[in-house]
């Protein structure tokens, strides 16, 4: 079982979210997700200033074999994207929960955070998928 930091929130579609405590959140894909995808070759990030809705696709991660949508866990406005991924998409493979973060949102409804999974619930979900 890959590590699942307890301070993060998770989605069933394998995104993680960190509440920065100032009305913004940082979002990426989980260690488990990058393992499934394999070596990433390209990341298509949303535009700064774009508004995204919870559950809508807003980014794409592409490996040599597949391209997968990344769904935003919450609604808000994109305030920053990880431009370093442009030249180094493999950062997500190497450090999914750290330097491999994808984008930051300014929350439009902090209440949406309540609906997300905690680390234990996400681990249970992954364990179930593996059986």
């Amino acid at each position: 079982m890959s590590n699942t930091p307890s301070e993060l929130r998770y989605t069933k579609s394998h995104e993680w979210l960190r509440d920065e405590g100032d009305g913004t959140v940082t979002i990426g894909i989980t260690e488990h997700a990058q393992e499934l995808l394999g070596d990433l070759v390209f990341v298509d990030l949303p535009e700064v200033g774009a508004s995204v809705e919870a559950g809508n696709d807003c980014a794409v991660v592409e490996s040599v074999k597949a391209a997968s949508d990344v769904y935003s866990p919450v609604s808000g406005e994109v305030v920053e994207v990880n431009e370093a991924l442009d030249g180094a998409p493999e950062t997500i493979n190497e450090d999914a929960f750290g330097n491999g973060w994808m984008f930051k949102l300014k929350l439009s409804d902090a209440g949406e955070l309540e609906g997300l999974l905690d680390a234990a619930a996400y681990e249970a979900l992954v364990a179930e998928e593996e059986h």
Partner: protein
Amino acid sequence: MPFIPHTEDDIRDMLGAIGVDSIDDLFDEIPAELRCGELEVIPSGLPEMEVARLMQTRAREDGQPLCFIGAGAYDHHIPAAVWQLTTRGEFYTAYTPYQAEASQGTLQLLYEFQSMMTALTAMDVSNASLYDGASALAEAVLMAVRANRKSKSKRILVPRTLHPLYRRVVHSIVRNQGIEQVEVAYDPATGQLDRQALEAFAGEDFAALVIPQPNFFGVLEAVDDLTDWAQANGMLAIAVVNPLAMAILKPAGEWGSRGADICCGEGQPLGAPLSSGGPYFGFLCCREILVRQMPGRIIGKTVDLDGKPGYTLTLQAREQHIRRSKATSNICTNQGLMVTAATIHMAIMGGDGLQRMAAASHANTIKLTEALCSLAGVESVFDGPVFHERVLKLPIPARDALKMLAAHNVLGGLDLSDDYPELENAVLVCATELRSDEEIEQYRNKLERVIASQVQTPCQLKPDW
């Protein structure tokens, strides 16, 4: 690869394995009202002898006219080796093969095609081809709307100097995605896109400007200026070019300060016969930064485990079989056979040969238009520089003149009255490298007689009463 049809027993076994009684049952979920039923207008079969006779009769009706029509499809010399090699069994396929990597020769050929197209257009990347020039432009438009994230309008600026059929095909393909073509007028003096009409759109939100080179009138556009203008106004520059013209004109990748963003066009001048309108092929090239938005097949060169070179389909993650409804396009093959011919054609001609073909076509068109304009009442409509076509105004209705010329076995050009009613009695003419001085002279003489038969000249002798 052998093609072995299923026997009745095979079919019965397979249906039995999945528990279905008949093949028709497999289509049960399609509602009856959506089915077309029996085909009623297809005649029953003919014996081979009858078919041969019918086709020979029809071929005779076509005759062997002298061709001075261009308008998107051009009568060029094709060296005999091109189709001799193209129709060899090893090459003879219409598409990218299934299990593509098992067909290394075909993939290498497509890789060479892509390399030649990028050399010809000075663009970074080429795909392995599309169906034809007009649908390649539609794909370029879709690509521009996806790629230009700053633009939200889904509008494209399209000059009226673009081929009218291209405008219609683009409309058919993109309208259901809510993409709108906004037309830009042309300058009636030069036949180029009207710079002032274009300026009126400065600062507005458009995803791209389409820049034809040469344009439908055969006239060369001010491509550097147009490319810079489009990019300065937040638009992508889409070049629609005749590939042969790229051999002697500035290639699209060098237009303006940044180069065109996308370059597409019709590949027919490179080794495909006129053949009553097809099959032809489209090409699509772009800047490297846009490659993930490019539709269609791209062949890459790589090394295998032993370090030996090999060819492979690359960037497939953009395509339908992986990306499903979010694919860049429903295109997931290419126009293999025509591209094989084009690649062999370009290899035989070389850069020098293509330049000579292009230069000779230009020279012949100048000769043709000078010869025709020596007739009273025939004149050039536009004064802009041309590649190998020009619009001429006749002293009699174009439709009548062309009909009478056709009766004398001369295809005298394209009547522009349907698409450009404001141009009176106008025909678009073309003389490729194939047209000899004698043939040009024949056209001039026949047109002279046709005009004389239609124009009543006042009698020079005064009656003596």
